[in-house]
């Protein structure tokens, strides 16, 4: 198991390195930070001065190596746009995104579990059709569009929720629903698929034959076996949510990592983009690892492999 974890960590590191290289090159190719920093009326000589002071006139590989070297020593650098240490900015913004992601994933699980299970009880029954229809709509609906529908209904027509900002927990409800809707379809499908398979298996028949009550059969025997793939998919979905938060945070004006990344990309503020990408990818990696460990706890078969 230890070699397993070590190997997973090694692969994850390579993934992080690849991601950071890609984002660095893409960002450098897409625009010029010196021009944005100087301001419209500053003239080219000042732009050249900024480029020289910050070392952006050096070859891109040298700049990347420089950034990487600092990173290895734990220095994420200073944001050119905000003028403060990137670590400070990330630390300020991360809790917002984590709160949003946690709300959303619990909402998604809260809806997807009962829905997927009910659907599995009678495949092709009306409940199954409803669940599959919801999953399909969830998958096909662009997240920004759904966000505006929420704003329209909950924010304007019913006026029960604040539309934008992040001052109170109420501000997180709409963005969480939007994100949950986005994460839900995959979980519904997995729960449904897992349950159908479990319910058809021999030990369920045995449990039924023993005369256990139906809910005990479903919850204690079938559901527990469905958990393994669900945990795996939920952790991946949580990573997706961090990515999806770019759109949702921008629409709902939440100052989290997503909005920070979006803003930093448009400013070519590469230390911030790099750090955000690293943080989100690191979360991904850690979550998949955690999911594997959690699954070992749930399923003794994995543990004893």
């Amino acid at each position: 198991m230890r070699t397993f974890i070590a190997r997973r960590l090694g692969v994850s590191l390579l993934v992080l390195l690849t991601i950071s290289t890609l984002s660095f090159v893409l960002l450098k190719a897409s625009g010029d930070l010196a021009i944005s920093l100087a301001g419209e009326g500053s003239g080219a000589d000042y732009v050249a001065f900024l480029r020289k002071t910050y070392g952006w006139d050096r070859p891109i590989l040298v700049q990347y190596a420089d950034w990487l070297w600092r990173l290895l020593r734990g220095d994420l650098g200073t944001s050119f746009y905000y003028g403060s240490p990137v670590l400070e900015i990330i630390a300020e913004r991360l809790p917002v995104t984590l709160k949003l992601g946690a709300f959303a994933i619990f909402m998604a699980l809260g809806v997807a579990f009962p829905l997927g299970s009910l659907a599995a009880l009678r495949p092709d029954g009306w409940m199954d059709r409803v669940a599959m229809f919801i999953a399909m709509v969830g998958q096909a609906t662009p997240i920004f569009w759904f966000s505006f529908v929420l704003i329209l209904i909950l924010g304007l027509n019913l006026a029960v929720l604040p539309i934008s900002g992040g001052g109170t927990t109420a501000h997180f409800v709409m963005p969480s629903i939007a994100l949950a809707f986005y994460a839900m379809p995959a979980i519904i499908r997995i729960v449904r698929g897992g349950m159908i398979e479990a319910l058809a298996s021999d030990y369920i028949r045995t449990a039924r034959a023993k005369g256990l009550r139906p809910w005990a059969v479903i919850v204690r025997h079938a559901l527990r076996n469905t958990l393994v793939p669900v945990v795996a998919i939920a952790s991946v979905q949580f990573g997706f949510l961090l990515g999806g938060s770019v759109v949702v945070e921008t629409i709902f004006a939440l100052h989290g990592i997503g909005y920070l990344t979006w803003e930093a990309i448009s400013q070519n503020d590469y230390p911030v983009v790099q750090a955000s990408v690293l943080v989100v990818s690191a979360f991904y990696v850690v979550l998949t690892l955690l999911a594997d460990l959690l699954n070992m706890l749930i399923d003794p078969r994995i543990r004893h492999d």
Partner: protein
Amino acid sequence: MFSHIRNGLALAAGLALLSPLAQASKADDTLVAAFQAQLPSLDRYHAPGREGFLLGLLAYDALLYRDPNTLEVKPLLATAWRQINPTVWEFDLRKGVKFHDGVEMTAEDVKFSLEYAADEKNRVFNRMTGGWIKSVDVINPYKVRINAEAVTPLAIEYLIQLPIIPKAYREKVGLEAFGQRPVGTGPYKVAKGKGNEIVFTRNDEYFEGGGKSKPKIKTLIYRNIPDVNTQVAELISGGVDWAYYIPNDQAARIERMPNITVKNAETFRIGFITLDAAGLSDPNSPLKNVKVRQAIAYAIDRQAIASKLVGGSSKPVNAACTPSQFGCTQNVTTYKYDPAKAKALMAEAGYKDGFSIDVYGYRSRPVAEAIIGNLNAIGIHANLRWQQYSAVIQQRRDHKTPIVIDDYGSAGVADAGGILPFFFAESPDDQSRDPIVTEAVQKAGSIADQAQRKVLYAKALNRIAEQAYWVPLFTMPVNYVFAKNLSIPIPGDENVEFWRAEWK
């Protein structure tokens, strides 16, 4: 599952009750203004863009103030000023003006602030406004002399953009802390500077007698809402009282709401097309031929683009500057939309069958596509290269762009000198390299005689229009959208005077 939704709604409603919605707010005398951009720093010297200007006006004061409608320069921290000789200006400072921390503003603060802006090492935003200053001499606590590097006809225009910051406090707390808890003399103090909103509260001590005045509304909240649809929803719901830069289609739709006012007003920003007349991107460029450039100018239906796509009060411009700027004569060669004439000119130039060329753009896709359509109609097959602003500008400076659809706001300078030196006179963005234009623009930028400067700018602008180095397109007005119960002045230069806003 439906019960789930119902529970969700009940929960949501419950949460909403627990934390009452931030309602805008005649009742608690709080004006909530929405902005697409956030302010990375509250230090005006490090706050970019339009919002940096507004921050400079709210929390700080400069020596002088420019009226946003008449563009007349008025006293502010300086009560009087005079030119001692072509490179030295003298300013009498207002006595008894207090910074938000209670310390009196004196000549030492002026010296500190202006020399900070002048020093390249400080990497301030828009260094042009401070770069001309050589040094500042303190004559006595209420009198300073500013020494310019050279004759600077735009000195006053630049000074209205340079806020005076407290030397003692700034040196004590340092750059980063000042950016979070700034101190100025302005009509509003920064009460809370971090997170989603910046809270400004009225400076009750604000002095009278300058071009600005003590705010009528007690609290001003700067809310960063990046998405314009969300801004509109907030305006309708009453969560936000004021927003600007709302696109025309949205503005037209919400104008019908009973609680909303929409006003469209001019800015300094104009749209234009730069043509590589010098053949920098290609020595055989057809754009080197004046007839081709004139054909392009005739081919573009500026009136239709201005009224249908830019909208509002946008109108075509003929000269290479903003009509409200000093020295910006509109009395130049004009090219009225005439595709037949354009085609004839193309044939005369030897391009009867047209040619193919790259057109770079970054701002408005519909406008760019209309221009491409106009060019196609006279046989110019334009390939649109859509990129980020900074990428397009860099490529023009690297001599890679034949045609750029561009726009410019002159960084708020009400003088043709705020735009011409950046696009002509051998600047890196100069794609025509015309010696006549260069001489006129450089001379106008180095003498103080305003009448003569006007003549020189007219000469340059006439030459630019005659040779069709540019296709000036249109003015770019913006929509101000705000609550009906709010009365707020609409500026002609985007410098909103929030301190004059009041509830009806």
